[in-house]
């Protein structure tokens, strides 16, 4: 028997379909729902041989028939991502995907296609307990400082975005025993300490993006939680630009400058200022790499918003023409500040790196006081599309980097002057409030979250190789796809409600942490509230070790 051993086989795929034809009622729902076309209807030949005894002894009866079955597609494009949609729709539990623990697929894929492996999601090297999980809130108020009542007490959960002047630089004068403002000072605004991070229209389906925007507007206007969302690179719909809801949006400008034509043209029609401008230099999931929007997701609507033709959209890894921090401050920050007449805080987002402290120090010393926020994104951050090698093998954890930046500012007496927003794996264990609280105590002014929001919306991807196919445009739950059939799966109202609910629940939980440490406002930099049960973590972060 001859067969080709060099083609990819089922046991090399990352997920293996387990199908029980005896339970299958041939409804075909699994094939219809599979956005990756990883399963198909096939026909199998079945032959049944029976020996039947008779008066002559026995005779052989052969029953041969063809039966329809569900079969896994075995190739490098349509491989199963384990999203589980087939299991979800199967009325009889006849089909499921099983994770194949052998890691051979990447090797086969590269060997066959001469392409790097691309995907979305977070890095898949999540095998250790996270640093944040080794930290506990250990300074509980007892007797000397009574704990607060999380349900009855009022809490002031606000942080700020925008450049903060040291008290002696405030442009005040005393007039009849009152302080008066003499002249201009950098803009700063009071916001909730959680920002929904930059996920663009394009990376997300318009329905998903809209659901986030609805949730943000609801939280602000109905629940009084002043949360902000960042648009991501790629602009925002024209109608939103000219609406009063723009005030909840932080507009992003990244190295591809996608969407900025439309934003600039809308400037004179804006009813409200945006909440901020975020200049993206890098992101934690793929540091040193630019944005990546595959052509299959760059549909007509996205082309219109971004002002681009139908093609793969690859943002350069850096902002062309910016070669130093000083230059970046002068050119880009100043022009962004000018564009919005110095009424809108302008912040920078960088991937966490061994060099982050130097960058932060440089910005802190900027004499023009125009950098209004420092967003650092750690390697546990997610992405809609990246080369897997970037995801798995580049980057820097966020926790120690945040701490280093904060303590470096303390050393100069400049803590808080450029608010730090830290991200990358925040809420990865499902608990946003706990992560936020700990990051605040370590010196963050706030956190940024992305992947968590998608998981709230129904994303099935996880850090053990499940799905993570955001780059393909085939998102099975309508979140990271532009395919109209797939986007219809996402119910905007339900998703908006779930996001709002989650944030409201987190707000309650945040109070449940503030109360026992006896604080009614945010404990930014209050690292004495934390302990670590890991000596190395405690030493590295300069917090108390407890065992």
């Amino acid at each position, binding site marked *: 028997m001859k067969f080709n051993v060099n083609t990819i086989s089922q046991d090399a795929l990352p997920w293996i379909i387990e199908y029980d034809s005896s339970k299958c009622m041939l409804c075909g729902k699994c094939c219809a729902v599979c956005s990756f076309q990883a399963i198909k209807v096939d026909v199998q030949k079945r032959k049944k041989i029976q020996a039947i005894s008779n008066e002559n002894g026995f005779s052989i009866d052969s029953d041969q028939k063809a039966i329809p079955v569900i079969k896994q597609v075995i190739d490098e494009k349509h491989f199963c991502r384990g999203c589980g949609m087939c299991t979800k729709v199967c009325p009889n539990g006849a089909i499921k995907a099983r994770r194949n623990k052998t890691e051979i697929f990447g090797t086969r894929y590269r060997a066959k296609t001469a392409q790097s492996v691309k995907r979305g999601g977070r890095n898949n090297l999540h095998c250790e307990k996270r640093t944040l999980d080794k930290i506990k809130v250990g300074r509980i*108020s007892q007797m*000397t*400082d*009574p704990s*607060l009542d999380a349900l009855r*007490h*009022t809490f*002031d959960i*606000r942080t*700020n975005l*925008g450049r*903060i*002047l*040291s*008290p*002696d630089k*405030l442009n*005040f004068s*005393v007039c009849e*025993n*009152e*302080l*008066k*403002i003499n002249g201009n*000072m950098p803009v*700063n605004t*009071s916001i909730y300490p959680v920002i929904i991070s930059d996920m663009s229209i394009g990376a997300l389906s318009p329905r998903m993006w809209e659901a986030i925007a609805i949730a943000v507007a609801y939280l602000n206007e109905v629940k009084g939680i002043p949360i902000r969302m960042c648009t991501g690179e790629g602009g925002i719909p024209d109608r939103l630009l000219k609406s009063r809801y723009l005030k909840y949006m932080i507009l992003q400008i990244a190295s591809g400058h996608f969407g900025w034509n439309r934003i600039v043209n809308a400037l004179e029609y804006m009813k409200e200022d945006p909440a901020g401008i975020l200049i993206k230099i890098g992101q934690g999931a793929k540091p040193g790499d630019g944005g990546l929007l595959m052509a299959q997701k760059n549909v007509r609507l996205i082309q219109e918003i971004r002002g681009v033709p139908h093609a793969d959209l690859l943002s350069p890894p850096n902002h062309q023409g910016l070669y130093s921090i000083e230059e970046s401050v002068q050119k880009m920050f100043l022009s962004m500040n000018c564009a919005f007449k110095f009424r809108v805080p302008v912040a920078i987002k960088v991937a966490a790196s061994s060099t982050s402290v130097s960058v932060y120090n440089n910005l802190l010393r900027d004499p023009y006081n125009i950098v209004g926020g420092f967003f650092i994104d750690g390697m546990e951050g997610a992405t809609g599309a990246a080369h897997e090698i970037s995801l798995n093998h580049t980057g820097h954890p966020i926790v120690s980097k945040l701490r280093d930046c904060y303590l470096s500012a*303390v050393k100069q*007496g400049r*803590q*808080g002057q450029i608010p730090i927003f830290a991200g990358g794996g925040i809420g990865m264990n499902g608990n946003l409030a706990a992560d936020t609280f700990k990051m605040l105590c370590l010196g963050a002014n706030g956190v940024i979250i992305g992947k968590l929001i998608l998981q709230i919306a129904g994303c099935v991807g996880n850090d053990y190789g499940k799905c993570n196919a955001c780059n393909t445009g085939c998102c099975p739950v309508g979140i990271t796809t532009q395919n109209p059939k797939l986007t219809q799966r996402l119910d905007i109202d339900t998703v908006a409600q779930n996001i709002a609910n989650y944030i409201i629940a987190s707000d309650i939980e945040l109070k449940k942490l503030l109360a026992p*440490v*006896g*604080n*009614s*406002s945010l*404990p*930014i*930099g*209050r*690292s*004495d509230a934390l302990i670590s049960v890991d000596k190395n973590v405690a030493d590295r972060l300069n917090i108390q070790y407890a065992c």
Partner: protein
Amino acid sequence: MCRIGAIKSQHYIHLSATLKLMRSQQKGYDNSGFAIVAQDLGGIFEKYKNFPILSLAGNNKAVEITEKYTQSLGFSKVFQYKMEVNNNEKLNIEPLENYIFIAYEYPKNYENSTKEQKENLLLDTRLKLRELLSENDDGYVYSFYENVISLKEIGSPVDIGKYFNLFGDKVDIKAKILTVQCRQNTNYDIVRYAAHPFFLSGYTTLTNGENTFYEKNKLALKPLYKGYIGFESDSQCFLYTLHYAHKILKWPIEYYKHILTPLSWDEMQAREDKEVLTRIRMSMANFEINGPNATIGVLPDGTMINVMDSKKLRPVVVAKDKDIAIITSEITGVNELLPNRDINKDIYTNERETIVIDNNLNIKRIKQ
């Protein structure tokens, strides 16, 4: 818990008034210490009002080091008073060998110096002496300033009073402003420098409670001024923030409250001065306290103030009669000193006000 008290009088009153004020509040503290700062001095110090007085406690070597160092700077001693102690009884106290107040004449080259320059010299001298005396734990310098003395010790307040003969008229030290605290700060080590009232260049504070934003405060304050040192107690932050806001930033005293316990963002938005208040809150986020605290302060001009934490109040009462105003932790203390006052005029400071008592004992309640 600490018990704190402050007496502001139109006439000189004896140091023993502090013991009278605090004895009835005894159930509120743990007998671990007693400290007094007396300002606007009378009695034996009345003649030396314009001379800086060094408050020193320590062994004989501390006295020697102090004399040598102050001489080297050109200070000349004009008066010295050593506290007579009572060694006869068995008392709960950890005494040192000497408790001395030394009034100096400024060095000759400071004759034409400004007040600021002189204050700077006194501060530098105190800080250096503190460093010299700490090397071998020889002694402590609590204050070096005109018209001010400080006395602190570890032990039972009543026993400390007996030890220093403060009951009765034996010691002729009087003052118009007396601040006093019972109990050492036991959240941290029991050390003399952790005992309030704390004093810096004319400013005094004493605080009851726990400053839960101590670490943030400390990190923010430390680099701002050479005098912001020690931090043996979280309550020192209150003094340094007061000094920074009032002396260095030169902001009116009303803003001290806005720094310590700013209004919530929502409340600020309803205010005409929201822009100023927002700027203060943002720029001074690291100076904010988060309670529970009651703080009493004295400004260089003798004005006495009281502010509270905005949510978990510590006890405090403000009361006065014609000649004396008192701010203290418990009403029992006031009743001892001002039994005939109109109690209807007693004030229980609320979470959003600053009490200001001027030199004529007029009490202003400033709403935040």
